[in-house]
């Protein structure tokens, strides 16, 4: 009798179904409801990653940041670019069994975008019907498909449960707010069931704990602080880093007498040695930032200087009399990187003749300091949306061109204007870095760090059950009698 055995899995190439991906986060996510915002950028990033497992958007962005169909299968725009019509994908269901319909989407989008007029309906032509959403704006909006791909436009269905239903590749099967979550594969996902059976998420794990868990095989996907990435890689950890998609910036406080003089701000900005910051504090995991947007995204960041000019800083400060007293520089006390950067700034400033002392700040605390080191997250791989996100986070009022995205020169001008008064000083662009177990296959996140876990599969996942009791007692001996059921222990 011919016998086959299911042995330990070996490397294949075609995706393999099964297995549980074990993910760890430092942040704690208390709710998956897209309507509740996470104030902290890191918490918001973690929440977005989890929400993307459960919910879809009408459009999504491809690797070049261009909008592609998602829950909307196609779209069209009027000649004046004020009215967009999105055709909804047929046959899509929420995980609670309800069909995707304009009745769910239109009110949700109206609630998010108060200046949009959103209507929806169903058009029937013979036996074929198609559902659509129409978005009208008062001024031309060429970026609507890009905007709809953002996480704040996730499509949800609010039922009786605590977590709204989604149409995404996974559904919530266990939710312990801020602690643990399990996401099970959505068997009926419109793009095909994910390869993983489930994703198990542990929240609130410190970076060191995550790395240990990865090393001892208790986790498959963990966060690694950028400044620790090099050391982890040297120890043989499998590392993946995004393109720089976070910004560390120095933000001067308004209404603080010491920094109301622009010359003080300019002097301090000139004293900062960003290259040394990247090389020593970040261990070369990052890029000096001259602008808000990294070069890979805007293409024009090289126009903003990142060179240190301590001599220029000294020259400017020497013109101020009397010299300003000690500036107080705040940083997020829970962020070791922010602290290291703040201390580096203090050293650079001292070299330029400016006295700076540093102070750790609690969550959400902004008052009582002359400047802060802040970490900001890029909200979109679309340059305009990303810049708008930074401006929104920092309270920068910018006059955007009425015609939407405008030209590259418009974008550059908005950025230049926001930097010219030295209220905000970009420091470094940071990547997101993750550690992966060797079992994780087809790990192809977006360049800017967005996960695509529906495509991931695990090499060690058990194969499907093999009916018929097939086993092999001895290598290459197909006639023996030592049969065991597949999955039995030897």
């Amino acid at each position, binding site marked *: *009798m*011919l*016998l*086959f055995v*299911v*042995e*330990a*899995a*070996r*490397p*294949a*190439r*075609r*995706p*393999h*179904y099964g297995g549980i991906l074990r993910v760890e986060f430092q942040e704690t996510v208390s709710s998956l409801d897209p309507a509740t915002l996470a104030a902290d950028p890191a918490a918001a990033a973690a929440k977005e990653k989890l929400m993307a497992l459960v919910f879809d958007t009408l459009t999504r962005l491809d690797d*070049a*940041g*261009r909008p592609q169909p998602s829950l909307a299968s196609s779209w069209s725009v009027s000649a004046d670019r004020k009215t967009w019509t999105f055709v909804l994908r047929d*046959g899509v269901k929420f995980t609670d069994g309800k069909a995707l319909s304009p009745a769910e989407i239109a009110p949700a989008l109206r609630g998010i975008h108060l200046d949009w007029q959103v209507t929806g309906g169903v058009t029937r032509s013979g036996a074929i019907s198609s559902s659509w959403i129409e978005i009208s704006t008062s001024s031309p909006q060429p970026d609507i498909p890009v905007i709809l791909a953002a996480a704040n436009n996730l499509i949800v269905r609010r039922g009786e449960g605590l977590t709204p239903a989604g149409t995404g590749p996974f559904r919530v099967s266990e939710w312990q707010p801020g602690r643990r979550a399990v996401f099970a594969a959505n*068997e*009926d*996902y*419109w*793009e*095909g*069931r*994910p*390869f993983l059976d489930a994703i198990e998420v542990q929240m609130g794990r410190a970076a060191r704990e995550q790395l240990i868990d990865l090393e001892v095989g208790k986790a498959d996907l963990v966060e690694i602080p950028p400044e620790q990435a090099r050391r982890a890689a040297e120890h043989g950890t499998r590392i993946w880093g995004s393109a720089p998609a976070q910004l560390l910036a120095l933000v001067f406080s308004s209404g603080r007498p010491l920094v109301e003089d622009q010359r003080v701000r300019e002097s301090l900005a000139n004293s900062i040695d960003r290259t040394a910051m990247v090389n020593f504090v970040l261990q070369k995991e990052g890029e000096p930032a001259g602008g808000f947007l990294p070069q*890979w*995204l*805007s*293409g*024009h960041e*090289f*126009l903003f200087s990142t060179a240190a000019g301590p001599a220029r800083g000294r020259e400017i400060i020497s013109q101020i009399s009397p010299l300003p007293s000690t500036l107080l520089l705040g940083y997020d006390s829970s962020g070791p990187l922010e602290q290291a950067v703040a201390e580096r700034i203090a050293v650079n400033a001292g070299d330029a003749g400016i006295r700076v002392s540093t102070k750790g700040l609690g969550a959400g605390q902004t008052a009582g300091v002359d400047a802060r080191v802040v970490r900001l997250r890029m909200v979109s*791989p679309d*340059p305009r949306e990303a810049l708008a996100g930074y401006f929104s986070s920092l309270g920068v009022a910018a006059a955007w061109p009425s015609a939407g995205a405008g030209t*590259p*020169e418009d974008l*550059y001008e908005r950025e230049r204007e926001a930097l010219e008064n030295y209220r905000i000083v970009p420091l470094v662009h940071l990547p997101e870095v993750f550690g992966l177990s060797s079992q994780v*296959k*087809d*790990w*192809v996140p977006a*360049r800017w760090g967005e996960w695509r876990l*529906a495509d991931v599969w695990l*090499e060690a996942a058990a*194969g*499907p059950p*093999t*009916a*018929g009791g*097939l086993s*092999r007692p001895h290598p*290459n*001996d*197909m*006639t023996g009698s030592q049969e065991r059921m*597949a999955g039995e222990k030897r």
Partner: protein
Amino acid sequence: MLLSRARDRVNKQMGASRRIDRSFLACLLFLLILIWSNVCAAQNPDLDQFDRAVKYIAEKICTAAGDHASMVLEVRNLSTLSAAEVGGVRRALEGELRNRGARLAAALPADADVRVTLSENLQDDLWVAEIHHGDSQQTAMITVPRARQSAQPNTAPALTLQKQLVWQQTGPMLDFRVAPFGAAQPGGVNRLLVLEPERVALYQSIAGGRQFAGAVQIQHAQPWPRDTRGLLVVDGERFQAFLPGIKCSGTLQPALSASCQQSGEPWPIISEPAKMFAAAFSPRRNYFENQTYGPADWMKQIPATYAWAVESGDTQLWGFTFVDGRALFALGNPPPHLHEISGAGSEMAGLKSDCGSGWQLLGTKTGDWTVGDAIQAYEISVDQAMAVGQPLEFDGPVTALWPSASGQVTNAVVHNLKTGKYEAYGISITCIH
């Protein structure tokens, strides 16, 4: 490349026009060439965009520097453009500036100091001009659609395995078949049937290229599995398309047509009537289930597999890749032993040839779909699969490897990670005696 490619295209067209009968009047010929060139330029978006960018940047420079200004022009590259492409941009820009009356100087002093940076962002190339004129500085930018593509190798060097690029497209491709016309049709003309997740498309060979000749949609009530697979079987003017849980039957003539329905019918591994051998494909997954239909009972015990290779001769040689990652081969019916094929991935097919035993196994490499792939030929002895010849390298994973009806060509679908396109290759073996 952008420039040279576009210009080459125009030059070829111009060259073609020069071959027109010399009895034409010279002025008429010149006019024709001119018109032809303009038509080509108008139809070539690369050239349009390139010229538009050159003109825009030159205009901005001349406006900022003033009429007939002298200027030093520096062109630097922060993008992935090649040195040759950067040289092309520089030459075009210099020409355009001179056409506008600018005087280019080798070094300062000059009226203006101009630096053009060829940069790029996530989507496009970005050309940035910084114009220093007196105490003022102006900045001009324009995006240029990125059109660079990697070179497509089409054949392996003097190796036993050869690949021929049959077709490429941007969307996913599950299988393809080259279907010759019947005897009534002119020789050398053939049709290409392409199976995609949502349709079967037909292309016809015309004038050295392929022209879309129609498509039929594949109706399916359930979502496809995430890694959708499919198999085409063409028999004369009729074809069958097997997809997970769905079977379509159709005809190529008089027009492409097909009807699809839910079906659990097994997919044919060998479709020759005398040796009918088929395996059931999971409707919700990407593998063959452990239900096979063949001439021997032992086949019913085969666990789930990604791929089968069966020699259709008398030797009874089998190859399997299992979902647990093993690649095995066996000889005999039933085969007494299974032997491992070291280093083989999940795709496998058999190929007839004039070499060695006359039948080789083709296997892909291990890894996942984030890296390039290769097809390796194996010569099977009693208990060993020996890699023969050099592997055939690809710029992306081989997502499908199906034998053709003749058995002398294997069809491979490759997802090229450099271009993002799906490529259809015919794989064959040439012997070097």
